[in-house]
């Protein structure tokens, strides 16, 4: 007599397949995703605290941590390798996980499993059953109509004496997880595109009446026509405004006024109002009257080393190997005479002339200039024409912005669709195994530990009761959270 033996068939993968499979499963794992997001959160927290006084409090409370705190303040977390690495891992995880889940979600939407088991209904957190005094066909019709009124899709198939029913609603919202996760990747791509192909000038200074080139291959230059500010009675700033003229390759292309919250854009380049300051209109000629410099010099970007309250600016004259330090009157009159040794009056500027290049270190003259009076110093004629102001702009071009906006839309839309259109599912068995012309119906939702899903199911059952004029028995299990874990069943013969 032949003896049949059963043995487990071994599907042995190659080592490479095993490694790929493990990596794939790692990136698909929700557990790993939780750890990755938690690590990212911790790094973000460390970076956030670095911008606060909390580490300093720690160092003050525990002097032994001084060294760690100093390193903490010195560590640029958001541009560090660990931060980039965790972002890269999360990006890969989102991609792999999406690819892995997509077929299953698509099947759930389009080809769900209709058949179910009585065990599923019996073990559900909540279930309902009833005896309907109608044949299965008409019971199914009534059941289907009732569910469709509640926006459920109803699918059924015959299994012997029973009809198995699968009903669901909001199935398309299951796809919303993809735009949401795609949005997270797009935000990173937007950031990379912006950093790679954009530029940002944080301190773009234009004195009134001057023109400055934007550079970065844009062919743009900007003129500050006028700067104006307004103040409230309590001394706080109400607004400051720059009237700008924009040139492209020397041709005027735009004229606009910008304030702090109203930038000016041209193409992908945007000009933002940031701050402003004092400037001095200067004219410098050689002894023959040839103009070496005629422009406004911004003051306040530099400070006098002996008096930090005195705004200062620098003019370089490469053709004359000279540098002029222009120092304005002290803003705080109370500094005199200790700090304000120059004791300049309004309408005066102090100029230090220093040699550059081969003339560096040469002893040269200093002078106090009076507004409108040209003065010869070290072979040049310097004139302080008038006080004026400069505007401080930020100039930025970020081609990643459209990607970021698209990602934002997908992110919020995806979240709302996921949360507010939950996929509700119900399984039912309509049985004709009892008396002729009578249907036994049992149904349960796929809503384990889902209070809202179960509430929705109870609503469906109430509706069925009304329509079918039949009393349903609703079975509810006690709190599954409070159940003790079951002991493993022992094997018995």
């Amino acid at each position, binding site marked *: 007599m032949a003896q049949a033996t059963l043995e487990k068939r071994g599907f042995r993968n190659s080592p490479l397949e095993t490694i790929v499979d493990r990596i794939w499963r790692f990136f698909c794992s929700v557990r790993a995703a939780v750890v990755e997001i*938690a690590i990212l959160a911790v790094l973000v927290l460390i970076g*956030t605290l670095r911008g606060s006084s909390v580490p300093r409090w720690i160092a003050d409370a525990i002097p032994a941590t001084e060294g760690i705190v100093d390193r903490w303040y010195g560590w640029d977390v958001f541009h560090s390798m660990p931060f980039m690495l965790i972002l890269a891992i999360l990006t890969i995880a989102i991609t792999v996980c999406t690819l892995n889940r997509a077929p299953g979600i698509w099947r759930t939407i389009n080809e769900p499993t209709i058949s179910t088991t009585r065990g599923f209904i019996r073990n559900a957190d909540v279930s309902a059953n009833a005896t309907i005094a109608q044949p299965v066909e008409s019971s199914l019709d009534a059941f289907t109509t009732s569910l469709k009124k509640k926006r459920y899709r109803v699918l059924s198939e015959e299994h012997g004496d029973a009809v198995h029913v699968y009903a669901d609603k909001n199935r398309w919202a299951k796809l919303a997880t993809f735009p949401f996760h795609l949005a997270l990747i797009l935000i990173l791509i937007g950031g990379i595109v912006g950093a790679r192909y954009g530029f940002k000038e944080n301190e773009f200074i234009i004195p009134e009446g001057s023109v400055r080139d934007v550079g970065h291959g844009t062919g743009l230059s900007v003129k500050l026509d006028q700067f104006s500010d307004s103040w409230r009675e309590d001394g706080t700033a109400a607004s400051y405004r720059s009237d700008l003229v924009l040139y492209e390759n020397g041709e005027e292309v735009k004229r606009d006024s910008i304030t702090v*919250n109203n930038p000016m854009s041209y193409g992908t380049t945007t000009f933002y109002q940031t701050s402003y300051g004092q400037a001095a209109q200067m004219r410098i000629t050689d002894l023959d009257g040839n103009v070496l410099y005629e422009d406004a010099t911004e003051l306040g970007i530099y400070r006098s080393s002996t008096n930090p309250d005195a705004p200062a600016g620098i003019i370089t004259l490469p053709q004359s190997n000279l540098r002029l330090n222009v120092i304005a009157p002290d803003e705080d009159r109370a500094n005199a005479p200790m700090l304000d040794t120059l004791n300049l009056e309004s309408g005066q500027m102090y100029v230090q002339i220093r040699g550059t290049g081969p003339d560096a270190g040469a002893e040269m003259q200093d002078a106090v200039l009076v507004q409108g009076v040209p003065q010869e110093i070290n072979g040049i004629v310097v004139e302080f024409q008038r006080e004026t102001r400069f505007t401080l702009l930020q100039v*930025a071009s*970020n081609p990643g912005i459209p990607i970021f906006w698209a990602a934002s839309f997908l992110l919020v839309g995806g979240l709302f669709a996921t949360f507010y259109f939950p996929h509700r599912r119900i399984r039912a068995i309509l049985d004709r195994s009892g008396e002729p012309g009578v249907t036994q119906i049992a149904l349960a939702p796929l809503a384990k530990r889902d*209070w809202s899903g179960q509430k929705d199911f109870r609503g469906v059952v109430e509706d069925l009761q009304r329509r079918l004029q039949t009393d349903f028995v609703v079975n509810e299990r006690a709190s599954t959270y*409070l159940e003790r874990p079951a002991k493993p069943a022992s094997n018995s013969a």
Partner: protein
Amino acid sequence: MEGMVRLSFYLFAAASIAVAAAWVCYMVYAVGFIRLRRTALATSTGMTVTGSSTEHVPGPMSAARFGSLFGWFAAVFAGLSVLTRAIASHRGPYSNMYEFSLAFVFVLTLAYMLFERFYNVRQLGAIVMTIALGMCLYLWSLPPRMREVDALNPALQNRPLMTLHVSAAIVAYATFAVSFAAAILFLIQLRKNVSWLPSAEMLDDIGFRAVTIGFPMLALVLILGSIWAHQAWGAYWSWDPKETAALFTWLVYGVYLHTRSLRGWRGQRSAIILLIGFVAVGFTYYGNYFFGGMHAYGGVN
């Protein structure tokens, strides 16, 4: 306009009293009483043995009803206080911590009352009203000059975006507070299984539903903040501490949402993450006190 500001303050005072009254009622209802029970037993010898025992009983339903009544009063008074201040300032009143916290008390009490109505549970009020009461006390502790309506500095002069950005933040923080309350009661239920508290399933659901409002709202905060930063600062993301603190909070709730689909995590561990999430909310909320950066004008002085 001065009168409107004063009226707003009086309405806030009324809201504070209502919050305090609601808190007392909800605490009585949720905590219940320790009842002393005396028993007398006649023995066969004719002696009577007396003894006493204690039992923990639920608070009276009338306390819960009064809690709800005061809760609605608090929401209405706080809402009117925000409204009158908005009329006085011609904008969403969110330019300093006084205005922001006042709006938070309003949205917190309103959000809670709506959850209470939807789920028909009142025990959460004991925790939510504790937070609301704490916020009222914080508001009273702020310097009186912060109650004045100040004009906006140039950086904040974007009324539509400021109103939307900060409103979204307030809704997010308020719903996270509700989820925090639900998580605490959930953890109590897991350990004590108190008969008169809502079921663990319902508390889990309340926590989750609250996060499903707060999480997209916090995403909106980050996005609207980015749009505003793009207009005002020239960069939609600057790694500013307040920005990254909000991102941290969002990530913590992201962890929570993922753990809900993990066997062994949904339930107790998820609830603990909700507690951590609310600590992160507090960190972000009060960050203006210890953050530098571009949100430093957030009005703590």
